């Protein structure tokens, strides 16, 4: 185990995999000479050369699509889309092509492609640069979507994504890059499609993913001082979705809250709540509540932006509301 940032872990994992497999190449804007907009790929051009670390023109549709074609011929491209907001210009290639090619052509081709991209608000980047639109990709059969919330998972899931023979959207988060955690030194690979019980507890289940998981854990640890035992489920994978782990937890705790950074309506949490009400109907003591972003194009002004985003205080309040509504006694 080594303590590292999420950023450093991504960097190291990319380098480690590239050293082992010459068919892995990196494709993206400003990943080489500029060393990456968020410096994940710093130094990799120097180590692997321009053949394997390919700076691209500003053409997300073109280079993401090119990565698809390269993958169809057996390469293993890892694409960086600078932020998930810019993936909107590449959407047709991701959804109509990467996700469909295996099925639409009767299983003859596959697309071993990884698309790394960060989401995240809270950086005062304004409405078109602050979105968490992972639900678009999570909705699509043929894609996988993973969303590590900490450095260790970043390593385990990035390796899994690179080894995967199908397209994987690897969701990072601007707010996580600087966070630290223990990272296994060995060749650590997680299984895609499995949620993680990030903290076990007995009174209430909080379901989350990506950066919001750090908030969930923070609140869970705080509430422990109030003798409230919170179980935190980190989804880790949005597609496939590990419904069973979620439902089993709620069958145990009888209460559930989702915290997510995206917009509430038709967000990730909607599916979680819908799943829980079906799978734990007779076990639930109160409705599943969702803590999500206010439904506005994210404002630049700091106080406005903060008001629009979920946070620990809000989550804690909602947990208390659910406990109160269910005659929870400490």
């Amino acid at each position, binding site marked *: 185990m080594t303590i590292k940032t999420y950023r450093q872990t991504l960097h190291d994992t990319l380098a480690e995999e590239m050293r082992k497999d010459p068919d892995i190449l990196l494709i993206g804007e400003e990943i080489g000479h500029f060393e990456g907009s968020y410096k994940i790929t710093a130094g990799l051009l120097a180590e692997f050369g321009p053949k394997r670390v390919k700076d691209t023109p500003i053409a997300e549709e073109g280079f*993401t699509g090119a990565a698809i*074609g390269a993958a169809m011929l057996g390469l293993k491209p890892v694409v960086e889309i600078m932020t998930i907001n810019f993936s909107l210009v590449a959407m047709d*290639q991701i959804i109509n092509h990467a996700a469909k*090619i295996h099925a*639409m052509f009767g299983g003859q081709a596959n697309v071993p492609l990884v698309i790394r991209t960060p989401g995240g608000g809270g950086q005062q980047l304004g409405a078109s640069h602050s979105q968490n639109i992972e639900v678009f990709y999570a909705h699509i059969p043929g894609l996988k979507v993973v969303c590590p919330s900490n450095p260790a998972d970043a390593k385990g899931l990035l390796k899994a994504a690179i080894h995967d023979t199908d397209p994987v959207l690897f969701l990072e988060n601007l707010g996580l890059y600087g966070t630290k955690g223990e990272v296994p030194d060995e060749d650590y690979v997680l299984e895609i499609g499995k949620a993680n019980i990030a903290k076990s507890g007995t009174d209430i289940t909080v379901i989350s993913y990506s950066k919001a998981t750090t908030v969930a854990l923070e609140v869970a640890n705080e509430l422990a001082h109030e003798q409230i035992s919170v179980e935190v489920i980190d989804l880790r994978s949005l597609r496939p979705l*590990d419904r069973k782990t979620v439902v089993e937890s709620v069958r145990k705790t009888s209460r559930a809250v989702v915290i997510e950074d995206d917009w509430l309506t038709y967000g990730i949490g909607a599916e979680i709540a819908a799943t829980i009400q079906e799978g734990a109907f007779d076990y639930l003591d109160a409705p599943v509540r969702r803590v999500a972003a206010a439904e506005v194009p994210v404002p630049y002004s700091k106080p406005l932006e903060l008001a629009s985003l979920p946070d620990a205080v809000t989550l804690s309040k909602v947990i208390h509301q659910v406990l109160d509504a269910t005659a929870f006694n400490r």
Partner: protein
Amino acid sequence: MVSRNTTAKAGRVAGKANDSKNVGSGNQNDKDLLLSFYEEMVFIRHFELKASEMYQKARIGGYCHLNLGEEATVVGMMRATQTQDYLFTTYREHGYAIGKGSDPNRVMAELFGKADGVSRGWGGSMHLFDSETHLMGGYGIVGGQIPPATGAALAISYKNDPSPDSPIVVCIMGDGTTNIGAFHESLNIAAVWKLPIVYVIVNNFLGMGTSVDMASGEPELYKRGASYRIDGIRINGEDPLEVYDTCLKTFKAAREEHRPFLIEAMSHRLKGHSVVDPAKYRSAEEVKVAEQHDPIPLLEKKLTELGHLKAHDIALIAAKAKERVKEAADFAEQSPNPDIGQLFSNVYSKKPANDFCRLPGEPLFDEHSFDTVTER
């Protein structure tokens, strides 16, 4: 993964292999070559007419776009490819699939949506794929094929040096497709990365009903290569020999120099955009012009004048083509539907944990979902 087979692409359709090596230019007087072009063009013509008939009979569903009028371009271009070359094309691709070497039976079976179809019934007319012939797909999204085609060329250059043995990518698109962003982004990437790819615009003067003049600021489309310093050339797509010669030369340069090219082949569309389009937006005059440019009578005339073809041969070749096409339709008819039990088997190449494989209306969980679960 990149095949090393460098033998010349054989003309398979008329049931007859073409053994002319595609290394030099064709010859006006090369009787065998011209005749084999003719036979394959006639075959594709009848294949498309059969497809149209089968669509009317509801054996084929969805959208169905034909190569009627485009046969010279199809045959000249496909003959100039090598088996190892990768072909990315559009939804208007039956002829190209056949020309690249796919079994017409399996192409027809795909149009019927059957298990023996080249795409196992999953793709249909717009989405033919044949891993054996390196047909990397017909694509239904306008421009959608261009970025993956470009990336396939990246994979080639990643694994191969330029050489007479290097595979290349041939990426086909329509005239209307040159106005979409993916065209621009991809050609630029191919230029900057020096990729072995030949983009071919089949200019049939129309998108669906919108003319090239109305849609493109620069209607001489081959000139658009200049924005990327890609050499562009316009050819007469009605003449299979001109198509063949130009493609041969251009493909050779792409192979040996690893750089992109742009070819614009002018070729009229004889019928509507798809089988169901009555093409009312076309004047009688326009239809007449298109018919005058039908490459099959044109070649027929030329071959007859050269003394290579008699009326009797024409009838024979047509009869043979019809016979073979009927065989394809019979094959397609008899092929089984894909197994419904396999509905979920193509979503991923390996089934992941917690993949959601439930039919419409099935509950999320069943009685066994929580066998191991905790008591309350």
